Structures are given as C-alpha cells and as structure tokens.
C-alpha cells in the first residue's frame, strides 16, 4: 500500500470512528453517509468500530477512582447545576465531558487495536508485550501523541498526529508521578519523526510510576530547569495493562 493510500485509509478510519461515536456532525456527517452508500470498505470500517465499542463493558478495564475524583465530579455537577439556574450554558460548556470521553474511549480501544502500531514491525514492537499505554490529547480532545511502552524491551513507541515545531524548539515528554505528583522528564524529542525512544533504567522507572504523561514544547535542548514550560501540547493518562491485555 502506498503512502497516500495509507494516509487515505487512516483518514477513513478516523472518520468512521467519529461517525460511530457521534462526533461527526452536520454536513460532514451527511457527506460521510453518502460516501458510505458508495464505498463498501468504508461501511466495513464503520461496522468494525460499532462492534469494538459494543464490547466496552468489561470491568478489567476500569481504574478505581480516588476520593478526589468523586468529589471533583460532584463539585463540577453542582457547579453546573447552579449555573444552569442562572443562564443556559453554551454548546462548548455542555460538551465539557467530550474530551474526557474521547480520551477514555481511545485509550481503551488502543488496548485491543494493534493496527495503529502494525507498521512498526521494523522498529521491533512486533510481538513484544506492551506494559503501558498513553494517548495524549490536546485541550479540545484531539489526539496529539499515542505511546506504548514495553518493559522487556525498555522501549517506548510513539505515534504522532500532526504536530509542528519551530526551528529552535523541541518537544519534551514528561511523567507525572503517581506517588508524589512531581513532574519529571522522560525525554527531549527533536521532532515528530521520532518513533522509538530507548529508555534507560531510570526513565523506565518514571514510566512505571507515571499517573499521566505530558507533552510540552520547549526551547531547543529541552527545559533548562527540568520543569515543563507553560506550552503544554497534550496530556493523557498512563495506563498499566493487565497481564491479559499485554500481548499486542
């Protein structure tokens, strides 16, 4: 399959996903439906996504929320309820849950979907068991960077969406510690062509201890004070896979 065919296939797959979860709306949805009527492989992609999403009911995939999570949700609901008496919230306010839903759905689906990393056979991902996975999204819920990490290989594989840097800038990947909340650097990444990170023992420890991963833009060479800048590109939960989910 050529590069342009690959890109086209990924675009169709992404559109099929959005159609199924309902985020493809208006004219875009109507146009997609028209395309589906003429394109059998597109109809097949849509039914694949429908089947995957219907299987999202296993308790093995849940993470036990902390007390803080529940009180934060309650506070948010109460705040929303109070403000609804005063004025009708706008469309964006009503859709505040959407980025979280998309992040959660994509994270879970990636556990079962090896196709996004199948082209990385030559980078060694192959049949290695995957221990950790993160999908980092922007503030508006778009995936910016997906990452999977293997302890056996001491490697992290990266899958980038469209991310651009100025000439004198680098990306930097950070781990937010589960145990003390401190943010520590995993790696400085020169550009979005980087697909594999070799992890030192110390860097692997940071991944294992991570509650979430952050991606920031820094001056060339990375953060000089070993702390993330305000230029946050994306963030996402770092999910530890259970033994039954590990084999990709």
């Amino acid at each position, binding site marked *: 399959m050529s590069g342009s065919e690959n890109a086209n296939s990924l675009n169709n797959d992404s559109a099929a996903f959005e159609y199924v979860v309902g985020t493809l709306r208006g004219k875009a949805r109507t146009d997609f439906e028209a395309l589906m009527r003429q394109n059998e492989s597109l109809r097949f992609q849509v039914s694949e996504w429908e089947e995957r999403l219907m299987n999202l009911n296993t308790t093995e995939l849940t993470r036990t929320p902390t007390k803080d999570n529940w009180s934060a949700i309650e506070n948010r609901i109460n705040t929303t309820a109070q403000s609804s008496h005063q004025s009708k919230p706008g469309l964006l306010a009503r859709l505040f849950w959407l980025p979280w839903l998309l992040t959660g759905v994509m994270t879970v689906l990636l556990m079962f979907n090896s196709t996004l990393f199948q082209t990385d056979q030559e980078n060694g991902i192959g049949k290695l068991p995957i221990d950790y996975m993160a999908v980092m999204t922007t503030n508006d819920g778009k995936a910016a960077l997906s990452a999977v990490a293997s302890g056996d290989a001491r490697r992290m594989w990266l899958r980038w969406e469209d991310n651009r840097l100025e000439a004198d800038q680098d990306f930097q990947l950070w781990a937010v510690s589960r145990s003390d909340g401190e943010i520590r650097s995993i790696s400085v990444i020169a550009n979005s062509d980087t697909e594999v990170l070799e992890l030192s023992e110390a860097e692997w420890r940071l991944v294992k201890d991570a509650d979430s991963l952050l991606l920031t833009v820094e001056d060339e*060479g990375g953060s*000089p004070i*070993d702390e993330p800048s305000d230029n946050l590109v994306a963030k996402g939960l770092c999910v530890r896979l259970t033994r039954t989910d590990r084999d990709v």
Partner: protein
Amino acid sequence: MFKFLFNRAIYISVLANLILSSQTNATPVLAGVADTKFRQCIEKLMAKHQWQTAAQVESIKCHNQEITSAEGIQQFENIKSLSLYKNTIKTIDIKNLKNLETLNLAGNRLNRLILSQLPKLQKVYIFKNQLTKLNFNNLPQLTQLKANDNQLDSVNLASTPLLTKLYLFNNQLEYLEIKNLPELRYLDVRQNPMPDEFYDFLDDQSDLTARHDGNMEDWD
C-alpha cells in the same frame, strides 16, 4: 618647512594611536573570554541590553551553544543569573561571582563541582552532567538543588542551612548526610544504591518527604 612636516607627522601618528587604542579598549571585557561561541553569546547579550562594561552585565544566558569553556566568566562580578544549559563545559570557576542568585550548568560535562562562599546563591541546576563529587560550602541562601541524573557517589553539603528541596534521582549514592539540613522538606534519592537501613532513617524524619527505592510501588 621641514619642521612643519615633522610636527605634522607626529600629530598624525599620535592621533592614529589614540584612535587605535580607543578601538582596542572598546571591548576589553571580552578579551578574557577564550571560547569563541561564549564570547559571541555575551556580545549579543551586551548589545541587546546595551551593557558597556563587565560590571553592567546582570545575567548571562547561553543555552545550547556548544560552549566548551567558561573561562573569562570571573570578570562578570555583578551577575545575578548564570545559565549555561546544554553546552560541553567540563570545569568552571565562579568563586568570585558573589552576587549570583541562580546558577544553571545542567546538561554539560562537569565531573566535579565545588561551590563555596556564594552568599546570595539560591537555586542550582546541575542535572544531566557527569558529576561524581559535589562539595558545597557556605551557601547560606541555597534553597533548591537539582543534581539528578549524574554519577554522584559523594555529596557534601556544609553550611547550606536553608536547603529545602534536593533532587538526587539516578546517581550512585550509598549514603547522604542530611543532619545539617534542618529545612529540608523534599528529597528524591530513588535510583541510588542505598541500603534499607538508610531508607528507614529517612522515613523516620518528620517534616521530610523522602522518595527512595524502599517506598516506591514501582520497585520490583
């Protein structure tokens, strides 16, 4: 006539000398800076801030410039901030920079660092070097030290009474003396070959949040 021409020649010669010496004296401050890239970086900073003399220079920030030597830094006695992140510096002498408040030498090739008698120094960033020894003495205002990701097997912190946060993740330390650090509130010594007895000692320190390999869930 001859006398007129002779006097004229002397006049022109003296004038030329004055012009040449004034040009030489225009940048005497950079004469002692041996490293070309360091000199160029400082030139740009001085032009940008319109600093004319070494005494006027308040801060130096030269990141990622392939600077191999900081020789000549000693003359900038009034700088409050020195940041040479991500260069290739192996040694540095800053003992006469008495006004220094922030020092960043992270991402270089230092293997030993001695800091002493710097009364205003508050924050030091020296992570990601090749340091094996640290000797800090009489730094009364030092509050934060980031020395993670080195090869430290010895850290001596004397007369640093205000040190509050100490980052030593990923080194080769078997022990760390903290009894003379009464204000220490956060310590990260994970990824160091320390014995369990020392972890127990750290856990017994009240008012100290210590992260070590004995209390991390990721320790297999």
